[in-house]
């Protein structure tokens, strides 16, 4: 399997990359880790005339702690998230969940920015970004704009990114001390995408849930927040009854597509299971 021929560009900074995007428009594609794009090009599902490789732009890599916010360069690879002391201590959900993405080789190349920009509901970072209420910095010819994760995923392979924009940074609010969290992902084998996945971030006051976000992977045309389930839990204790109510709310909200991982009924049931597991684990971790 060999991709259709293309012209290769390796810009050295963001401005150069944006210029190239402006020059070639719809004929160009950005290359990040290549672990979604190159397989699609080999299958000829994608045939860009120009490939703009971001791998030689050092300013797009790295993780910075700015106090309340962790700033992650879009070209930061999964293994760098996993190994980062900043991510481990300030965003432990990301460090833990990134280990469930693909396999060691893929994690050396696959980037957080590519995982988000691809707009694939099967990818794990979109739900994680929703659960953590991340913001994305999109840089284009007119400068930067910031888009909330909640407004970024617009449909299957469809995001808020314009043709001439690059996702440059991911801003994630620090998880406060005592925050409970979990990412439960059902997969057929190591390295597989989720059959169903659920991310939970929560806080309790006394025994009562005072803050909660729940987001789901591969259960609709985009990653989604499970708002009805959140409302069912907010201000309440996590008991078998509220857990059931939350799972039911999730099962009513999902819209999974049948594929080799299962039919709609099975995936809906598994959505309920993953949410229950994630809630239970996150609650245990609340302090």
């Amino acid at each position, binding site marked *: *399997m*060999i*991709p*259709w*021929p*293309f*012209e*290769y560009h*390796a810009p050295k900074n963001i401005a150069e990359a944006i210029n190239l995007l402006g020059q070639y428009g719809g004929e160009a594609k950005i290359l990040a880790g*290549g*672990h979604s794009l*190159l*397989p699609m090009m*080999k299958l000829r599902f994608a045939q860009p005339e120009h*490939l703009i*490789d971001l*791998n030689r732009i050092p300013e797009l890599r790295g993780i910075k702690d700015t106090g309340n916010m962790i700033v992650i360069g879009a070209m930061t690879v999964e293994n760098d998230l996993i190994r980062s002391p900043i991510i481990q201590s300030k965003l432990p959900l990301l460090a833990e969940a990134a280990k469930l993405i*693909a*396999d*060691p*080789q*893929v994690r*050396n*190349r696959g980037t957080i920015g590519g995982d988000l920009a691809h707009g694939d509901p099967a990818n794990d970072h979109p739900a994680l970004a929703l659960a953590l209420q991340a913001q994305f910095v999109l840089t284009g010819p007119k400068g930067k704009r910031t888009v909330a994760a909640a407004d970024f995923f617009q449909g299957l392979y469809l995001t808020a990114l314009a043709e001439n924009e690059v996702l440059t940074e991911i801003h994630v609010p620090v998880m406060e001390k005592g925050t409970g969290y979990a990412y439960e992902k059902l997969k057929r084998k*190591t*390295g597989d995408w989720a059959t169903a996945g659920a991310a939970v971030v929560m806080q309790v006051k006394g025994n009562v849930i005072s803050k909660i976000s729940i987001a789901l992977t591969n259960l609709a045309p985009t990653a989604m927040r499970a708002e009805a389930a959140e409302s069912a839990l907010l201000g309440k204790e996590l008991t078998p009854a509220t857990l059931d109510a939350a799972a039911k709310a999730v099962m009513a909200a999902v819209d999974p597509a049948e594929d080799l991982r299962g039919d709609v009924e099975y995936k809906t049931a598994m959505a309920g299971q993953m949410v229950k597991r994630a809630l239970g684990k996150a609650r245990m971790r609340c302090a």
Partner: protein
Amino acid sequence: MAKKLIHVTVNGQSHEVAVEPRLLLIHFLREQLNLTGAHIGCETSHCGACTVDLDGQSVKSCTHLAVQCDGSSITTVEGLAQNGVLHAVQEGFYQEHGLQCGFCTPGMLVRAQRLLQENPNPTEDEIRQGMSGNLCRCTGYQNIVKAVQYAAKKLSQAAAAAA
């Protein structure tokens, strides 16, 4: 499309070659450099038979462009043995019967030597996790794990002797 000149070092030997941008690293290694150790299994980034070491990291060479490797250093399975002496991971696979048909083995070996640099003293679980990007249709993995354990032991004994 215009070819691009790249400079790469493969198994310690430097090469300057003009490549078509769409040329995959695996095809560059196998067809242009005649290094046929790394295999093409799935071609879809799943099996790991094409694993090589790129600038100190394990990568699947079927999902990387040769043109991206300008200035890089690559090790393939052909580069593991030094002066006719097998690398510890090669010896481990031989001693512990870590292969049957051998198709997955070049990728397994290259990944195993990198894993043991990342984590010289892995637990069985860490070996299984660390090797999870490499599929084997024959062995059932049991002997592959033993082979990596053999190599870990041998390398740590050698390191202790050198210290």
